[in-house]
């Protein structure tokens, strides 16, 4: 029984890893576009690898990590797209703040483990957004990250107003 259970556990983990592996591809696609118009290719590649590893880990882990990674990637793609279309520092800050607010609002809909959700989703969105903001400059990447945290954390952590 215990041997069979451990074989089943290994099969389950392998299956989850196999299902999570394709999530390494979206960062590669974002990085490909960023690399084509950016001089800092080493930075782009490093961010892309970190994002791929994080996405695969979160999807393999599942639960709140998986949900947060999906939400973070959706927000992160927007945060990547805006600076690619409009390469200005202000655009990075604005999109970082907007993504952070959206992640915070999403976290508030969760009954439990909000902080983990916000942290994971913000990290994923921040890394994806950084792939776009790196075209503007490393300062813009930092500004976008700060704006994202500023938007996400307070919204997620402020307790909901009680209804009368």
């Amino acid at each position: 029984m215990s041997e069979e259970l451990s074989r089943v556990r290994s099969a389950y983990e392998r299956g989850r890893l196999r299902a999570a592996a394709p999530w390494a591809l979206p960062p590669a696609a974002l990085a490909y576009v960023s690399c084509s118009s950016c001089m800092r290719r080493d930075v782009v590649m490093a961010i892309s690898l970190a994002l791929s590893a994080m996405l695969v880990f979160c999807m393999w882990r599942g639960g709140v990590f998986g949900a947060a990674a999906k939400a973070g990637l959706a927000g992160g793609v927007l945060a990547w797209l805006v600076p690619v279309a409009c390469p200005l520092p202000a655009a990075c800050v604005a999109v970082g703040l907007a993504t952070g607010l959206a992640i915070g609002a999403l976290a508030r809909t969760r009954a439990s483990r909000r902080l983990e959700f916000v942290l994971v989703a913000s990290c994923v969105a921040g890394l994806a957004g950084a792939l776009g903001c790196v075209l503007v400059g490393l300062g813009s990447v930092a500004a976008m990250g700060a704006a994202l945290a500023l938007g996400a954390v307070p919204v997620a952590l402020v307790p909901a107003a009680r209804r009368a």
Partner: protein
Amino acid sequence: MDARERREVHELLVRLADGDRAALHPAFARVSPLVHRFCARVRGGAPDAADTAQEALLRVFARLSELDPSRDAVAWAIGVAAWECRTARRREGRRRAREGPPREERAEAAPAEPRDGGPSPEDAAMERELLEAAREVLGTLRPTDADTILEALGGERESGNLFRKRLSRALGRLRAEWSRRYE
């Protein structure tokens, strides 16, 4: 397996599909006998029936990430096990075609092979499952409705107008109950 038990197994498998490892042990304890029973029925007296069940169980858990939570997880698990049984039977068929079975194995494996013109073991097992489900649903109907359907099935009654109306009503209720449970 009754509806409550089925729902519990479904919930365990859905939790596991979402990555909740705490559900692994209870899900294994509930799904393992189910898959072993199913494979034993489908593979009949095949010598590798236990191995097939093991493979099927591993396959069910390996593919859990693909589970759609809106669909019945028990039916999904049985579907995966059925596919594994079919694969094992084909593999065995190919092996037999290549080298031919030993005499004693031939005698043991004979019940697992489809009879000429008869249903295959998978079809027979599915038919048994279906009949069991039909019996279960029939048991929830009012006795008069169940009797009417059984009489019609057995051809025991002359088909008069009154009987036809009763049968139509009984079949309507059967259909509704079936949809409520399985659709």
